[in-house]
């Protein structure tokens, strides 16, 4: 015969009241398995203090849940509808896009209900700042997902073509070597201190890598370089395009 045991039974020497109280929130939410719930119910029936604790928790939740609706004190509909009418010229967004993350244009929000128009204080502006993290992402979020994919592919192909052409690689290599020479000249200036000198060395090494990479590209046949760079950039761009547009989803 199968033996029924509490899967999460109190340990020996461990106060039963503590064990019960730790589980009261889950008991309240109905998250406990039947046996544990039954054990707690039995304890509450005989322990005045735990029963009192549970009753207070229940009363607290009841008080919060029975809070009445707050009346705005005025009819908000006229102001809301005025703003909606101002926006009504805008087409409805495609359902496949995370449209809620795109900021509402200022033209559609001439003024808030309370008349405040200070930048950065309105929820719509805070929304766009908080969820998008900058103008670049805001711009990207104005595009639909297919548009973002297309843009990513086009940008990758264009960059790959430019880099793989001998002109692009030569230009990159030349720029890298010029900067390296400029840094060498800077290091000879006595006013450049020890720390600055150290930073310059780090920068020099970075530039040397870029210039070396450009030199390498020049030695590889154009078609292979285009393919490799294009694949890498395309993967990065597609990864960026697949990222969610914001933290806000309506569904």
């Amino acid at each position: 015969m199968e033996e029924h045991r509490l899967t999460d039974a109190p340990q020996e020497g461990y106060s039963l009241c503590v064990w019960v109280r730790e589980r009261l929130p889950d008991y309240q939410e109905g998250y406990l398995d039947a046996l544990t719930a039954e054990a707690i119910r039995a304890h509450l029936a005989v322990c005045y203090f735990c029963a009192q604790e549970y009753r207070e928790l229940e009363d607290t939740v009841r008080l919060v849940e029975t809070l009445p609706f707050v009346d705005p004190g005025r009819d908000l509909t006229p102001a809301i509808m005025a703003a909606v009418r101002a926006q009504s010229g805008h087409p409805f967004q495609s359902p496949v896009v995370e449209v809620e993350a795109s900021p509402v244009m200022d033209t559609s929000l001439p003024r808030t209900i309370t008349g405040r128009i200070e930048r950065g204080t309105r929820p719509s502006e805070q929304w766009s700042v908080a969820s998008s993290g900058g103008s670049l992402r805001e711009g990207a979020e104005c595009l639909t997902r297919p548009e973002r994919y297309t843009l990513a592919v086009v940008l990758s192909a264009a960059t790959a073509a430019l880099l793989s052409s001998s002109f692009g690689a030569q230009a990159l290599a030349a720029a890298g070597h010029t900067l390296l020479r400029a840094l060498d000249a800077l290091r000879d200036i006595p006013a450049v201190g020890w720390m600055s000198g150290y930073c310059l060395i780090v920068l020099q090494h970075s530039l040397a890598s870029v210039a070396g990479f450009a030199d390498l590209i020049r030695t590889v046949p154009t078609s292979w370089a285009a393919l490799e760079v294009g694949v890498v950039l395309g993967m990065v761009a597609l990864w960026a395009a697949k990222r969610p547009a914001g933290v806000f989803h309506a569904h």
Partner: protein
Amino acid sequence: MEQTDAFLVQRTLDGDVEAYGVLVQRYERQVYSLAYRMLGNGDDAADLAQDTFLRAYGALASFRQDASFLTWLYKITSNLCIDFMRARKSRAAVSLDFEVEEGREPIADRSSSPEDTALRGAVSEVVQDAVMCLPAKYRVVVVMRHLQGLTIEEIADQLHLPPGTVKTHLFRARQMLKERLKPILGMETDGRA
């Protein structure tokens, strides 16, 4: 006969802006109320209610008509509230940071005790004040769980937090609320006795 939400949404999508006005009229109080419970400020709640309806209007095509329109509005409202509080926190001075992280002192009728206020029939005022005294991260989960009626999993999904963290926040929030509301709970217990 009252027109259904789905019917009004479809009318709006067909270009009838006035149909959306009926939806706004129908739900403005609920949306304002939720925003007020989260933000604790009437002006912010009114602005946020407007933003909610605007955003919902712009995204109406993405509303699944088999779902509840009010639930959808609540979701938009709570997300906007969360962003609003985050933005407010990022702009806040030290004192407000403290309020966001640690909660604030009660403001409702400082001249009298919670018992006195409750005796005057303003129990909801005391409870609202206790909710507003919670740190923002606890207040959000309390409002979402007990006023919106979302499950722990739904809250976790919406806030991008592990369910365990949401449960911990909820547990601590209830404990803090219980301590703050103890005088009223005591009165109610005495009253039942």
